[in-house]
């Protein structure tokens, strides 16, 4: 290993403790002699091949078989996936820096399409794509020396590349540093991808790929490991309290960047962008570029189901980017108490809008016109949800305010109704209502404004209500 300056010894020690891997130089890896040969042990997500145990570089033979297969994208939603090895994401490849990889890309004869492979771990034109364009029923072979350690995405790069990636053609290759990675209890493989179906999210049946949506970058599905619900329930990731979990996380895209997050679990260590030389600590959410990767690592402190999401949150809730990590073991009430009490919250006063009352200086209307204008806002914020924007209410539920005999008949009763609420049967314009109106903790000014607005809208009587009148007649809270 070449002599380098790491700065102070203390800083170096800190980095080592954090799990930093310095690895060798590219030159060292280029010159690292190859001893022996082995076939790569590959794994399907969420599994990861075992750590490399060798203390020397070797020749690794990797066979990736491309299969075009119909499979499940979501419940009752089928899709024709294009895969490296039969599943999305593709097989996880694990090698050591300095290794010589002999890559065989085998395009199954049942396939329709030509395919190739671009491994981001390769230094060379197209990352191998230029050497691996392969017709159905044929194989391409090329080799590369692993010069840079790290976690890398591979993908098909045949034009139109967004269609090949969009159909699931991506996976990851881990190039371990010579000294390996720190030992952990569990390693898992999680890869995000976006899918573009002609039907909307949830439309059933075999869904064709949508060229228009992929060009617009508007996916119908954003998923982990190839389908909605791939990693939940019985298929969730598992660990025990006290164990350390390492996730190899990739984003195949083709278009979306991931805001990768585990709900309720801080990442103790993150290797951003899969860069093993510069781990960071105590991370909540890490950004993973399309065509990029990260390694996240954390120790479980308490049991429970931890939800893995793309924290660009709509994707998690509506498009499928959700997986589970189930952790068993002893509770630790000091780390997390759980719910200790379940009480009804009773704010002071009768209404619900008490926060900040008296602190906000509300504008005071200087004229009837201003009062109507301000009252429109009060109405929209407080009354409109039930009485409706047109004042017509909802039949059998919420009485109308428009041309309301109950309202126009008695201004003082209106003030008392708004300030004190109403919980009796009443008849408005000949229709019976039997609901509940809450008492509103609004200022005298606000109530004067909103009543004036209501009286001067929808063909009502046109009278004005003043704050003085509200003060005089309001029902006071008990």
């Amino acid at each position, binding site marked *: 290993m070449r002599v380098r300056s790491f700065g102070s010894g203390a800083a170096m020690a800190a980095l080592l403790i954090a799990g930093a891997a310095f690895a060798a130089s590219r030159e060292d890896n280029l010159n690292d002699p190859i001893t022996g040969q082995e076939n790569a042990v590959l794994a399907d997500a969420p599994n990861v091949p075992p750590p490399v145990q060798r203390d020397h570089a070797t020749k690794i033979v990797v066979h990736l078989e491309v299969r075009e297969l119909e499979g499940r994208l979501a419940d009752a939603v089928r899709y024709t996936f294009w895969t490296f090895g039969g599943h999305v994401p593709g097989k996880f490849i694990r090698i050591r820096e300095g290794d010589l990889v002999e890559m065989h890309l085998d395009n199954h004869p049942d396939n329709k399409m030509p395919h*190739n492979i*671009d491994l981001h771990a390769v230094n060379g034109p197209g990352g191998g794509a230029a050497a691996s364009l392969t017709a159905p029923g044929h194989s391409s072979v090329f080799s590369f020396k692993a010069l840079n350690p790290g976690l890398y995405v591979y993908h098909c790069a045949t034009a139109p590349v967004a269609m090949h990636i969009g159909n699931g053609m991506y996976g990851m290759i881990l190039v371990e540093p010579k000294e390996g990675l720190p030992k952990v209890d569990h390693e898992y493989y999680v890869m995000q991808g976006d899918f573009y179906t002609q039907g909307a999210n949830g439309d059933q049946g075999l869904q064709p790929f949508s*060229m228009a949506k992929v*060009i617009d970058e508007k996916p119908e599905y954003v998923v982990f490991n190839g389908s909605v619900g791939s990693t939940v329930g019985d298929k969730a990731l598992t660990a025990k309290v006290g164990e350390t979990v390492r996730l190899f996380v990739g984003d195949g895209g083709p278009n979306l960047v991931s805001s990768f997050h585990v709900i309720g679990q801080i990442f103790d260590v993150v290797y951003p962008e899969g860069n093993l030389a510069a781990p960071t600590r105590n991370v909540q959410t890490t950004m993973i570029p399309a065509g990029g990767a990260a390694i996240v690592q954390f120790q479980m402190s308490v049991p429970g189901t931890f939800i893995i999401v793309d924290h660009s949150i709509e994707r998690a809730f509506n498009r499928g980017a959700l997986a589970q990590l189930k952790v068993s073991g002893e509770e630790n009430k000091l780390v997390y108490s759980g719910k200790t009490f379940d009480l009804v919250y009773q704010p002071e006063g009768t209404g619900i809008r008490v926060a900040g009352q008296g602190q906000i200086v509300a504008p005071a209307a200087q004229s009837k016109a201003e009062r109507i204008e301000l009252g429109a806002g009060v109405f929209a914020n407080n009354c409109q949800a039930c009485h409706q924007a047109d004042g017509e209410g909802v039949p059998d539920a919420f009485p109308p305010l428009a041309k309301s005999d109950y309202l126009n008949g008695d201004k003082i009763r209106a003030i008392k109704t708004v300030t004190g609420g109403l919980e009796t049967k009443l008849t408005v314009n000949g229709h019976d209502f039997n609901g509940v109106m809450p008492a509103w903790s609004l200022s005298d000014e606000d109530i004067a404004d909103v009543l004036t607005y209501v009286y001067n809208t929808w063909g009502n009587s046109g009278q004005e209500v003043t704050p003085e009148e509200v003060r005089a007649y309001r029902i006071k809270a008990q």
Partner: protein
Amino acid sequence: MHGAVAIAVGTLALVAPLAVGLAVELNSDGMIALPAGLYMPFLRVRALNASNADATAARRIDAFRLDAEPVTNAQFLDFLIAHPQWRKSRIRALFADDRYLKRWPSDLEPADAGARDEPVTNVSWFAAEAYCKARGLRLPTTEQWEYALADEGRGRETVRARSLEWFAEPNGAHPPSVGGPPNGFGVRDMVGLVWEWTLDFAAYARTGESRDSDGKDSANFCGGAAAGVADATDYPAFMRYSMRASLKADYTADNLGFRCAGGAP
């Protein structure tokens, strides 16, 4: 430029026929006469076999004839009866790989009775070209084939949609029979049944060519592909050119057939 011909740049191929009063002409030999016209190439990379023509300019296509449909198993059987050296037991290894006529149980026996009208597949470029030569024809050039598909801009969205549909259909045991609806020229089944050989399939993309040393081999993969084409939203066209680029003349594939072309009638 050839007279007052309007070219809409950015579309795959908008052509104005130089022959007026076009009608579908189906000759007795099952061929369609296509009029001369202008064609906007999809790839703005000069083909290896092209003259010094500007790759971004419209190209003139001379009148030619093209098989209305891909060559079927029944037609190929007739050829094998007359030309024994192309039977699967006799073909030289140089001219076809191990999957030559894979669906045929024996030399003169297409897969099954129903396969007669299906496009013949698992034929190499050498075998396809020999078949066409036996009829006094050749394989169409890539430009002729693409010109026939472009169909003067007619039905462009239908062609794209049908192509994408076909891409998404998992492979069946055998391709559907010929006899789909004709396009404006009267040509059938250009998409949705099989890929088709062209005479100069290897002339455009160089990604499959490991001896390439001119540094242009990025033209057909990843983002590099989008830089040199007329319409980067035409995914099926990318796929056709990628497929051709992945082939070698002795290759055969389950979804690869051909049709023949000839000079103007």
